[in-house]
């Protein structure tokens, strides 16, 4: 291009000045907002990554809060159970003493009184409520005390004593989320924590020739077992044993009836779901009464009691002055203590797992924050340098523009 019009220089100078001012403005805005991404179009992929990272960071923060809450609940439960254990150990001491033949009936009765008091304390521990006013050992039924106390008379004593405890809660375990797709149980149902012996249920109905009528679903301890039409008793037993529930099923050789036995001490929770009547037909559950736990058939034999059952029988033996009974009671207390210590170990393990997860989150959160920062945060040093560069070039350009208004021929003509 050889010819230059007078306007061109002005237009060019204007164009470049505008461009530079626009760039300076952008830079200042970004510095003010501390972000590289003022418009999504500045770096769309980084912005997209950042949305995922930000959501992930939020989730991690929530998981940490969850863990803290669960740990708090757990500490509360643990303190109650530890207390419970201490009381049990005291009762065991008394039972060992009472088994000695040297104590008289009166001495044993005095011990019985103490055991009774300790029993009352055990019950109040089991029925305790947390800071929100909810009971902690009732499963889902947290407005209700887990153990209903039945009172009555005891041989050789005056007044109303605890004669039996019925569990009124359920086996619901509320799940808390501590990490993506990772859940932990938040509560402990009373009929699993405070149980001493494995439960055995012996049905009294002859199961040979029994066939399941239609596709049914039964629930044992909350675990679903599906049965198909035409299954005979052996198929049913096989399916129960293959399922993940902690129960062994077998056929009683004498009566040809179904026997269910737990593998760890807890109360069996059995129900037929919807139209199923399998457990009712097999004589395990009472017909028509489907809601556990007090739905075991009257004709079936149930063995295996809770810790309270152990303590009650021990106390009654002490009142009666029955040395053999007290001796047997020691065995019961040992089972009870073993059950409680197992629970405490499980709680300890859960707490460790929560701590490990919390530590991992503590480590991971700053790492993710760093990634996010790399995507969207402004490198302040770089930004300031660029701004300075723009300022200098701007000044230079303005100075040059001033010279552009150069003299024309007009200045030189008369």
């Amino acid at each position: 291009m050889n010819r230059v019009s007078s306007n061109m220089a002005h237009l060019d100078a204007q164009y470049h000045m505008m461009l530079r001012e626009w760039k300076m403005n952008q830079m200042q805005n970004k510095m003010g907002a501390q972000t590289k991404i003022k418009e999504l179009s500045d770096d769309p992929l980084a912005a997209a990554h950042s949305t995922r990272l930000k959501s992930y960071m939020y989730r991690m923060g929530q998981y940490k809060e969850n863990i803290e809450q669960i740990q708090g609940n757990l500490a509360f439960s643990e303190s109650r159970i530890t207390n419970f254990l201490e009381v049990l150990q005291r009762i065991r001491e008394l039972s060992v003493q009472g088994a000695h033949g040297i104590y008289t009936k009166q001495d044993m009765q005095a011990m019985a009184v103490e055991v009774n008091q300790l029993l009352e304390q055990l019950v109040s521990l089991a029925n305790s409520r947390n800071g929100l006013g909810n009971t902690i050992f009732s499963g889902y039924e947290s407005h209700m005390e887990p153990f209903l106390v039945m009172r009555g008379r005891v041989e050789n004593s005056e007044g109303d004593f605890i004669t039996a405890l019925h569990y009124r809660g359920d086996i619901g375990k509320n799940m808390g989320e501590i990490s993506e797709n990772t859940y932990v149980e938040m509560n402990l149902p009373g009929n699993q924590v405070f149980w001493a012996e494995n439960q055995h249920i012996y049905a009294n109905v002859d199961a040979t020739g029994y066939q399941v009528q239609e596709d049914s679903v039964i629930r044992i301890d909350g675990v679903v077992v599906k049965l198909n039409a035409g299954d005979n008793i052996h198929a049913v037993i096989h399916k129960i044993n293959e399922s993940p529930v902690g129960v062994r099923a077998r056929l009683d050789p004498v009566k040809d009836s179904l026997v269910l036995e737990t593998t760890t001490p807890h109360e069996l929770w059995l129900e037929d779901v919807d139209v199923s009547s399998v457990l009712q037909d097999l004589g395990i559950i009472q017909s028509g009464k489907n809601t556990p736990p007090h739905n075991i058939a009257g004709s079936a034999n149930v063995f295996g009691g809770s810790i309270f059952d152990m303590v009650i029988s021990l106390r009654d033996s002490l009142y009666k002055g029955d040395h053999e009974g007290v001796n047997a009671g020691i065995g019961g207390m040992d089972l009870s203590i073993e059950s409680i210590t197992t629970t405490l170990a499980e709680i300890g393990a859960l707490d460790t797992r929560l701590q490990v997860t919390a530590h991992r989150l503590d480590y991971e959160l700053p790492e993710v924050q760093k990634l996010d920062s790399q995507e969207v945060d402004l490198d302040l040093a770089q930004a300031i340098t660029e701004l300075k560069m723009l300022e200098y070039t701007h000044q230079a350009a303005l100075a040059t523009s001033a010279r552009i208004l150069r003299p024309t021929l007009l200045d030189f003509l008369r």
Partner: protein
Amino acid sequence: MLSTFSGIEIGKRGVIAHTHGLITVGHNLNNAGVEGYSRQRIEFKASDAIYLPGLNREETPGHIGQGMEVYRIERIRDMLLEGEIVKETGNQGYWESLDKYFQMLGQVYNEPTEHSIRSLMDSFFFAWQELSENPTQMGKREAVLKHSQALIDGIHHGYQRLRSIRDMLEQDVAGTVDQVNTLTRNIAALNEQIQKAKALGDNPNDLMDKRDMRIEELAKLIDITVNYNQDPDELIIYTNGRHLVQGKQYLQFDTLKTEANEGYSLVIWKDTREVEQFRGGKLAALLALRDVEVRAEIQKLDLMTMNFIDLVNAVHRNGYGLNEKTDIDFFKEYPYVLNANGNYDRNGDGTFDSSYIFRIAGKHTLDPQALIGIRGTLTLSGVTGNVTVEYYPTDTVAEVVARINLSGAEISARLDEEGKLSLKGMPAGDFNNPDFVIRHIEDSGEFLVGYAGILNNSGTDGAYDWEQVDAATVLRADGAAFAVAPLAHPAGWIEVNQALVNEPASIASASGINGRAEGPEDGSVALTISDLRYKQVMIGDTLTLDAYFADLVASIGLRGQEASKVHETENLIMKNHKDLREAISGVNIDEELATMIKFQHGYAAAARFITEFDKMLEIIINRMGV
């Protein structure tokens, strides 16, 4: 023998011609800074010399020059460059509008900050988690309601902004059509004036400058090509094959509101009422933005909202509140029609003719890793026409589901919480089809029939088609579940069920067994709802909500970035062209002044010559023979 006054005549011609020259120079100097002005150059030519061969010529040796005169005043403008500029201006106008509106659209989402719909949704889902841990606490329930309201406000706000951008575009379209009409009218009027002037042999330079400016303005608005050379008397402007302006004839555009496009207008020719598609210029950009880009963004928001409502409600309905109430929707659902089978009268003739169903779920529980062992072809409704999806015996269920989602059908598939195959309608690409309605499902084999339990029969007889009343009768009566399509734009009407606001204890947190609720400490339903945040719930063709939000941001950001970069490039191209035009047609003051001096001298010389000749005449008149 020459005439007495021929010398004076020659001098006079010189003076007058040079005066014209000076006037032209003065005109150039005055207009140096005026936009669109091209410099004019006066051309002199020598007058016809005498004597031409003929019988009445004088016997004198000739030719004797007769001075000079103005030949013409030429406008210095390169018409080839003009053609280039007209073309590029169209591109520049197109990308300029896109850039401007994409910036606006990008800001609607407020990402990646803590104030976006996504972060409101995070808080919403976390409120459910908090509820699941303490379901007996009324405070947590209130928190769920508050966070729901905040999220709903965020969604409404997003929807309103997108809607108002679309309305803004509509106004812009109408305004631009008016501008185009005004310009074509003006250009035609200028054509007429120029034609008349040219007919008289003149060069109407300033009128032509003005016309060129109008043409450039028009080029920015719509894509045109100009033919300068075909007929020098008649300038023709073409657009899309039609003569927009031809000499003093011109055509006009009009707008036609279309119900299928939600009342937004199409641009039509005023005379033929035919729709015009533009391929460049601001108007094309506005229409593309309004009917493709912004419409798609609104559809995306609706898609997310619709799926969100559907997913939360499905889980919530199966849950039990603290007061053991169940089967309550969390979000109020507004169906398109209040008819259990979704029957609707589409053509307004008084009888039902279509079924508006959004979701169909099968009867059988499927295992995603199971091999299907059957062969067939699915025919599903696509954007235009139908799409086929093949399935083979060696495919797993998960593979067939993925294939459906990638097939381009306007139907999305997933296995829901119970493992049943769930097919959902998606927003429609073509305006004439409604959003979120399943239009066609057909299976030549048994996958949808016996395997998933959706249809009763295979082949065309058993196909589900929306263009019939009670289309749901082809679905398996004993188990396929279906839901009626929602009212348009769920993002606009989403709201929490008032029953829950009045009685927060009804918010479902517990699951149930055998028709009765679990105890109050059970928060499993609340936990399931909160997990929807990162589970594979299939929002259209994105797997999770995370993927949806990331995709939303990336998509608008990339388009915005493209628009911004191309706009910058176009600006640079235009600057180069305009610089070239300025170099050719721009006034250079020094040049003009030099020319002015030339004419001044010429003028002075001619005047001097007259004076000398006058002296000679004076000798003859006053002193010869006295």
